[in-house]
């Protein structure tokens, strides 16, 4: 091992850390009416991050900080998507937050800290670094959920999130300690090597015990059944702007957690069989419970929460193939999920205005008469979530099903498609409300210029990546192949 390792794989993180401090200090000198300055600084630091990521991504993995931190292609791609997602989240959230007194310095600092946590997670090559990144992200998120101090629902959601999250972190940490006990190392590449050589195998009870706890921790982070209880409450209770955040970028980081732990650290063939069974059960249960429960929801945020649970089930289906093909399918699915969810929650924010939350399904009634363009975008998003071509959601499901079938899990694939038919029902219901019903709310929809453009681009992306899915699919495949 080299004595002096290059620092550049961590440049984006270091830059972001510096930028958060600048934003925090600068915000002290900004009055409430000029808060847009803080917003601008936040977006500027994210743009800076994007440039650093683009400039310092290499196809070969480069290790730094004594092998605790890695810069590989997957981390580069995921970080890029995380930064872009956060930028979009902030842009969608700006008018909503401004109207509700959430447009404060803390909001931006917390978002940036959470972003930093995600980026650290994505690049971790050491279980403790992974854990540190996760905690930084989670703690910032708890605070964001509770940001609306006078809202009882939000406080309750934050409390629930915090208690369950702390439990899950504890489980993850406990699992990591077991694995350390079994193998004597916490570094992911070394772990893979030790288990791969067969020194510690599936007959080692401590290792398997640790694996179970780790899978539980991942399950919580992604929000899959039976660790899904927090998802509907947090999505529903948090201010919509924060829900938009919680439901998107952290899932990308959660995917990195999945890859780093299951594919890399515990990815030896003998162990894959062990976690494959657990993932299968979790994935199938998520598909069943997520899709069936979503049908009876009347609140759009809760409905999307259950739909998220079912989508995470699909991501796990991709992962359970256990090979590069499966993980790239899962990554593609996750990116597509984030893209469509950004649009769905973004639309919810767009229809909300001062003193009015458009979070009931009925608030979407007759949207086609109020604004055909936004109704069309939402239609595309809903059909993408259903998985109907020519929207991008279809290819995400295709990729996952292909990977599941390639390892011979035909029954699981059949269950998955049958429950996506169940899922189709509630997505169609939203289309029905928008297109077939008369509007209840007739207030004009007047989004700001930037939101208008970004939302249109968001909708166009759902369609365009559906017509030309190759670049995004190839990017996911290539980055996973280069990193595994």
């Amino acid at each position, binding site marked *: 091992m080299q004595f002096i390792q290059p620092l550049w794989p961590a440049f984006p993180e270091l830059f972001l850390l510096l930028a958060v401090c600048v934003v925090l200090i600068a915000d002290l000198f900004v009055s409430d009416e000029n808060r847009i300055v803080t917003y601008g600084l936040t977006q500027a630091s994210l743009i800076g991050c994007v440039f650093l990521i683009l400039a310092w991504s290499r196809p070969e993995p480069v290790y730094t900080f004594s092998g605790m931190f890695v810069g590989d292609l997957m981390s580069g791609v995921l970080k890029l998507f995380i930064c872009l997602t956060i930028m979009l989240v902030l842009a969608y959230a700006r008018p909503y937050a401004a109207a509700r007194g959430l447009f404060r310095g803390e909001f931006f600092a917390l978002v940036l800290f959470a972003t930093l946590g995600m980026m650290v997670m994505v690049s971790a090559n050491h279980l403790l670094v992974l854990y540190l990144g996760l905690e930084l992200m989670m703690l910032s998120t708890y605070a964001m959920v509770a940001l609306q101090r006078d809202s009882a629902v939000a406080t309750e959601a934050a409390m629930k999130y915090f208690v369950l999250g702390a439990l899950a972190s504890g489980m993850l940490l406990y699992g990591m300690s077991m694995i350390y006990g079994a193998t004597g190392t916490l570094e992911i590449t070394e772990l893979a090597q030790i288990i791969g050589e067969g020194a510690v195998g599936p007959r080692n009870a401590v290792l398997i015990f640790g694996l179970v706890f780790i899978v539980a921790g991942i399950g919580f982070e992604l929000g899959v059944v039976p660790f899904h209880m927090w998802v509907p409450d947090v999505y529903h209770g948090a201010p919509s702007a924060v829900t938009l955040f919680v439901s998107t970028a952290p899932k990308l980081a959660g995917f990195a957690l999945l890859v780093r732990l299951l594919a890399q650290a515990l990815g030896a063939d003998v162990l894959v069989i062990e976690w494959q069974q657990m993932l299968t059960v979790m994935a199938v249960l998520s598909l069943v419970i997520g899709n069936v429960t979503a049908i009876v929801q009347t609140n759009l945020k809760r409905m999307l929460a259950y739909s998220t649970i079912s989508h995470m089930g699909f991501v796990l289906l991709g992962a359970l193939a256990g090979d590069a093909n499966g993980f790239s399918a899962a990554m593609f699915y996750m990116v597509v999920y984030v893209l469509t969810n950004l649009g769905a929650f973004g639309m919810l924010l767009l229809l909300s205005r001062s003193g009015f939350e458009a979070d009931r399904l009925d608030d979407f009634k007759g949207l*086609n008469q109020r604004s*055909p363009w936004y109704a069309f975008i939402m*239609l595309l998003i809903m*059909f993408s979530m*259903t998985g*109907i*071509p*020519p929207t991008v959601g*279809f*290819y995400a499901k*295709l*990729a996952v*099903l*292909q990977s599941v*079938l*390639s390892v011979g899990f*035909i029954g699981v*694939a*059949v269950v998955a*498609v*049958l429950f*996506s*038919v169940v899922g*189709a*029902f509630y997505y*169609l*219901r939203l*289309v*029905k409300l928008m*297109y*077939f019903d008369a509007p209840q709310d007739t207030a004009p929809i007047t989004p700001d210029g930037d939101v208008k453009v970004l939302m249109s681009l968001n909708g166009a992306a759902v369609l365009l990546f559906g017509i030309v*899915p*190759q670049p995004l*699919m*190839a990017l996911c*495949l290539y980055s996973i192949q280069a990193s595994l």
Partner: protein
Amino acid sequence: MQGTSFLSLAIWVPIVAGFAVLTTGSDRHATVARVVALVGALLGFVVTLPLYAGFDPRLSGFQFVQLKPWIEAFNVHYHLGIDGISLLLILLNSFTTVLVVIAGWQVIQERVAQYMAAFLFLSGFMNGVFSALDGLLFYVFFEATLIPMFVIIGIWGGPNRVYAAVKFFLYTFLGSVLALIALIYLYNVSGGSFALADWYALPLPLDAQILIFIAFFAAFAVKVPMWPVHTWLPDAHVEAPTGGSVVLAAIMLKLGGYGFLRLSLPIVPDGSQYMAGFVIALSLIAVVYIGLVALVQSDMKKLIAYSSISHMGFVTLGIFIFNAQGIEGAVIQMISHGFVSGALFLCVGVLYDRLHSRQISDYGGVVNRMPVFAALFMLFAMANSGLPGTSGFVGEFLVVLGSVKANFWYAFAAATTLVFGAAYTLWMYKRVIFGAVANTHVAHLQDINLREFLVLGLLAIVVLWMGLYPAPFAEVLHVAVDDLIAHVMQGKLSAP
């Protein structure tokens, strides 16, 4: 001629026109939307004419082939090509789109641009299904048709439109997701190829063939629709606007029959033969039982919907008796049914626009007020009952001829449709058109205007042409059907 990309034009001209129509915006510019839509539909039809002109019926295999990589990560290609079967269906589709645009000219007053655009999108997608030679491309177009049809039924449909739209969508979606699994399975076992040609050549063990057949069957049987998964069709037809019913009956149902011919039979020939008895049984039930059900309907649209199911039973019967007459008859029956059922739905639409009722009992003596309409309606009713000299006769006759070769009793059961079909169609016709003027509403009816006459007249010409001189339609089919039969009979079993 073969080098130019007329197939791509047939797909994309309507779709681009659809977007153009959407940009005309709100109903204040409804006339602009209508004109743009008509120009788009006409252009879409014109670009398919070179396909017929340049098609060489003596060549086997696919013509006008286009092959470009599309999704390299999954080895999917933008692979188009047609044989005689797809050629006829593409022509039918593009022709019907023109009629539908004209038929909706005055009737649709709300959200005109969206209505016209939905039909143009639908037309492009269906041409895509008929010309796709790549399994995934086929599926993408096949599924994409659901979106515009869902919207058409749901926005412009009758009182129970939401129920019908959702039922239509979920039924067909459920069928097709199983086919998707079969497609991915084939992709995996063929070593990573979605090309239909590779799948045609791929040997498969019998049990895999049967499972794949069942998966495809789930998708196509719902689409056809076959008894007992037909129940979405009467609901969808009754609630859909006239244009929606026409496209649904004339073309969307053909996606199912076409799927059997393009995917099921050649990819899993042994599985198809193994399951043929089952499919034939269902087809005969559809022909006989649904024919009887049609007899008792009091709603004209429902009656024609059940008549469609019964006629589609003929199509699946023809396909699964595996001889040249049967399959040729099935394809001709599909084309003929496209014209005839489309025309019948338009006729009902003409009456509905005037009286806003589809109940047979609300009419009577229409001939006294609308003689021109009654004459045209007569022709289509005769064609629907399979009168010689109309297009309906050719297909039915060929299928019955084919089934006599297979089994006398198949032919016997199938031939009952000539009785039932005549009974329900003509009885409805009699009650609606003849007799004394039933009520004051009928007494104030106006005969069809020039626009309606143009639409029905064009269809009447085609129906008579196909009945009196079917050779131009039949000759493009021979080679394609013979190749298909040879392939199916040869089989391609591999050791399990």
